[in-house]
């Protein structure tokens, strides 16, 4: 085989050996099946962030607004009508100092001048 024939053989063999094989349907099905699992999260580019924010629905939903207004009105009524005082009835509203506490109330003289408060 001379050089020209050798070159031709190599070119032909390369084309034959590297040509696309017939589609392997079973392999395609296997890969597609593996791809049917939950897909991973997509990577969002930073330059799309303003668009995402613009797409965001900032408008409040009316049922939520109504619920919020009801809660506010209920709080106002409870505050005005004093309904909450019944819950506080069992608690003494002011502090009591007993005789035993007196000993703990010590006023230290001021270190430099000796003045007492």
């Amino acid at each position: 085989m001379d050089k020209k024939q050798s070159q031709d053989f190599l070119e032909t063999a390369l084309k034959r050996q590297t040509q696309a094989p017939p589609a392997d349907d079973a392999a395609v099905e296997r890969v597609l099946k593996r791809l049917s699992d939950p897909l991973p999260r997509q990577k969002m580019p930073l330059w799309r962030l303003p668009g995402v924010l613009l797409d965001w629905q900032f408008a409040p939903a009316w049922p939520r607004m109504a619920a919020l207004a009801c809660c506010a009105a209920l709080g106002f009524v409870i505050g005005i009508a004093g309904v909450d005082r019944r819950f506080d009835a069992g608690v003494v509203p002011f502090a009591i100092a007993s005789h035993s506490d007196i000993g703990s109330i010590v006023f230290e003289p001021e270190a430099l001048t000796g003045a007492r408060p």
Partner: protein
Amino acid sequence: MDDSDEALMARIARGDERAFRALASRHLPVMLGLARRILGNAADAEDVAQEAMLRVWTHAPRWQPLALFRTWLTRVVVNLCLDRKRRAPWVALEVAGEIVDPALGASEKAERDERERLVAAAIAELPARQRAAIVLTYGDGMSNAQVAEILDTSVSAVETLLVRGKQNLRRALSA
């Protein structure tokens, strides 16, 4: 509805899984074939094709239609193949070729098959980038410019890869 690759990619970028499945079904057969020819291993080729399609999904929002989708996907597949070849050298099992049936008796056929087997074995021994360049040029009939775009290199570098690849093949075949 526009079902071009670019239109499907725009839908995938918005999280449309049906568009993704349509695009995967369209390109998987070719990408599997390409990966198999570069890697020489069907199981690895399936892994690479799956990984490439997952990259299509995850990178779709960032994808810019600067080049044809197919060119971009081919580049992804080739890069994944080169990474895999770099990590774990492939043991050439599939290049052993079919055993020649002695019943056929044709010595010419046996000789031709033997030469083909030698060529296949020599291709399998080529460095990964030379092999990828040869597969894309001879197998897929791409121009040097297209191969250069996929391999992310210059046209002259592709020409060098092809020349060196063929030199290596001749050396291997003459040994």
